[in-house]
């Protein structure tokens, strides 16, 4: 027995191996778009130990345990969705904060090429711990958070109108406990005439050096969008629902079909404009004239929740494809949800596939054909291209493979 074992070990060690397989995964011949590292060309990407190990042309397939042929496909950093609602739970009438209007992240992320979802405002400082334990720590998706300026989070109704529960100091303290996970502060749904929610969020944001994201609207009487963009927000702060036209918020495109001058001015001073599509916040009547003028979004997010997922929004690739068909170049569309999004949330480690980065990768197919895209008013734009996710890699692991491009033929598997 001992002899046999020794012999077996010897046999294993002395068997000459052609070459060491230093890579776990090699994605060959895809068109890589990595804006941060200035790559926009057909090349190969190799992964080892969960990290990007090499990006170069003609990497020898013998060096990899698994090889994917990505010819004709785009290989990009795993997509970041800057505006999602994933603090799902079972509390009655809790809306997007431990309620059933939020969705489980893994159900929607990987199939759309997303490796990072940013929950915006589901949790406040009071219940962030529950969010972390219940969702963030359990998801395979990387889940980050914009903490709500409301301590109790986005529970709807009077909870979100309670100025007494909007505490900049306590919000900042919670952020300090979770650097890099809480990456910003959210203000949403407040309908009073005061600027306090915005100003307190900005105060906490200044203290912790994180951006704030504003869902603006519903104020009675309305507050000035120009005041918000030019006076209250800092460069790097974010207006979401850019192409919305809702009660109590001035739309960015005026009655003559022109983007308001102060909106352009805000962009020049560095305010970030996020799509935040959602169930009620994206109208072609706004987006078409705005984009004709060149006013494309900085980041293209979904505002994913149960009310948007089966409507015109659907998923991030459908939302990104809307902007492709509105004339936004593919490179810019990809950059928005990779390098730019990472920059906005001050996570420079994300949104790129340089050597050493965690291997979060999306392999996308740009389909040509006849497609239709619907906005929140039920209006349709016809288009001829649409993104589809072939393969998603999270920390070096294949977590989605639509057509089995990373899989061998079943007849080639070793028989048991």
């Amino acid at each position, binding site marked *: 027995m001992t002899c046999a074992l020794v012999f077996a070990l010897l046999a294993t060690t002395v068997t000459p191996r052609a070459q060491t397989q230093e890579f776990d995964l090699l994605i060959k011949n895809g068109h890589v778009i990595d804006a941060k590292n200035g790559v926009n060309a057909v090349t190969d990407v190799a992964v080892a130990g969960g990290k990007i190990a090499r990006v170069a042309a003609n990497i020898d397939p013998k060096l990899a345990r698994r090889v994917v042929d990505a010819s004709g496909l785009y290989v990009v950093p795993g997509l970041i969705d800057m505006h999602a609602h994933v603090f799902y739970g079972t509390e009655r009438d809790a809306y997007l904060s431990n309620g059933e209007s939020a*969705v*489980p992240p893994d159900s929607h992320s990987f199939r759309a090429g997303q490796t990072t979802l940013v929950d915006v405002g589901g949790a406040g400082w009071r219940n962030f711990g529950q969010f972390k334990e219940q969702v963030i720590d359990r998801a395979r998706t990387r889940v980050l958070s914009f903490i709500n300026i409301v301590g109790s989070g986005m529970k709807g109704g009077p909870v979100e109108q309670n100025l007494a529960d909007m505490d900049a100091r306590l919000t900042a303290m919670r952020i300090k406990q979770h650097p890099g996970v809480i990456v910003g502060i959210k203000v949403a749904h407040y309908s009073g005439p005061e600027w306090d929610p915005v100003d307190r969020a900005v105060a906490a944001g200044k203290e912790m050096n994180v951006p704030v994201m504003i869902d603006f609207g519903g104020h009675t009487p309305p507050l000035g969008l120009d005041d918000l963009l030019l006076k209250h927000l800092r460069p790097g702060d974010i207006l979401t629902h850019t192409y919305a036209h809702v009660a109590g918020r001035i739309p960015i495109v005026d009655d003559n079909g022109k983007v308001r001058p102060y909106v352009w001015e805000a962009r020049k001073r560095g305010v970030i404009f996020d799509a935040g599509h959602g169930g009620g916040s994206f109208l072609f009547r706004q987006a078409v004239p705005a984009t004709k003028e060149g006013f494309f979004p900085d980041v293209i997010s979904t505002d994913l929740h149960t009310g948007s997922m089966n409507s015109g929004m659907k998923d991030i690739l459908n939302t990104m494809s809307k902007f492709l068909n509105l004339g936004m170049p593919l490179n810019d569309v990809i950059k928005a949800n990779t390098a730019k999004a990472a920059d906005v949330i001050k996570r420079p480690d994300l949104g790129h596939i340089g050597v050493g980065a965690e291997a979060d990768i999306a392999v996308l197919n740009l389909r040509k054909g006849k497609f239709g895209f619907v906005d929140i008013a*039920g209006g349709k734009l016809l288009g001829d291209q649409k993104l589809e996710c072939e393969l998603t890699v999270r920390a070096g692991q294949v977590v989605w493979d639509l057509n089995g491009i990373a*899989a061998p033929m*079943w007849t080639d598997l070793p028989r048991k």
Partner: protein
Amino acid sequence: MKQALAFLLSVVAAVGWAQAPAQPALDYDLLIKGGHVIDPRNGIDAVRDVAVKDGRVAAVASSLDASKALKTVDASGLYVTPGLVDIHVHVYPGPKTNDYAGGDSSIYPDGFTLRSCVTTVTDAGSSGWRNFDDFKSRIVDQAKTRVTAFLNIVGNGMGSGPIEQNLADMEMQPTADMALKHKGLIVGIKSAHFNGPEWTPYEKAVEVGRLAKIPVMVDFGGNVKAGRTLDDLFGKYFRPGDIYTHMYGGVRGEQDPETKGPSKAMIDGRKRGIIFDVGHGGTSFRWSTAMPLMKAGFLPDSISTDLHTTSMNAGMKDMLNVMGKFMAAGLSLRDVIAKSTWNPAREIQLEELGNLSVGSPGDIAVLRVEKGKFGFVDPLGGRMDSSQRLSCEITLRDGKVVYDLNGLTAERWDTLTSGARGGDPRWDNTRGRRR
């Protein structure tokens, strides 16, 4: 945004819809024209128009008059079938860890069903009589999807670890009482994952099935280790109409050890009237089992997903992907549709579903057969190539659009006046999460 949206919608309701000229009562709310209808219940496999009114199928005919419909959709080149029926899913999510019964192994139905043209699912035993009320109030009553259930013979349902092995929690009377109280919603009894040598779970499940006049579905658990055989299950315990799921799992005696085709127990079971269901899941569909069985003619009665968190992003993905596998294996579209509509509807004794008979609920799928190069992976990581796949263009539940991939029912955006919205509540329910 919630309040703002509600306000916007109320304004739109007042302005947009009210501006529409008063119309005489029309015969149809929605008319789907020119699609190829596959309705196995009624033997239809031809181009037909399909109309719905007040939530039900109103007419199916070669040519229906578009002027009689509030809304007409052109479905040329597409297939129009009954809404798909997936009788093996796990949709009872909640805060527990590694648990199907109110835990994170289950998923919310609406994120997977409607975009896959599935209108009815049957939760396969996630809940038992002790937690069915919670499942009903949190999921069944909230979902846009029609959610039915196999009630677990285990009172606590599909809990993790010892919970499913607890023979003392398999009580017939309360299980039967709950099933009878929710006739038509609880459509069967489930036994799953049992690892002991006893036949108790199966005896009790079948007895409850007799009391409630509903079928049982069995995931045969650790039968080989425990010494239980398929032949005994089918011959001594199952009634005709009882359902064996995970039929291509390949680890419980489904295959003849020599030929790799169906075992004698499977062949005899089918002769006895046992129903065979796919239940793909995270581990229960192997090409190396399915292909030899299918080559020998042993096809599924019903195609189902076993949707849960570990199958959803793996080889299973969704109902259409699983159906695509059977097309890749050589089955006709008509057969695949039959096994995903009328067959499962009959298995769960809901014969008003899975068909397009006039008067049936307006649960309708509009499908596209896409041509190209596609691949389908099994849980062992093996791929089968195919030249086609199915995609879901439109889903109707109770006569209303609940999913519209390419906006076939939508108006061009520049034809809508400012503040107006397309759609009409009589046929459009794509917005919001509630029915």
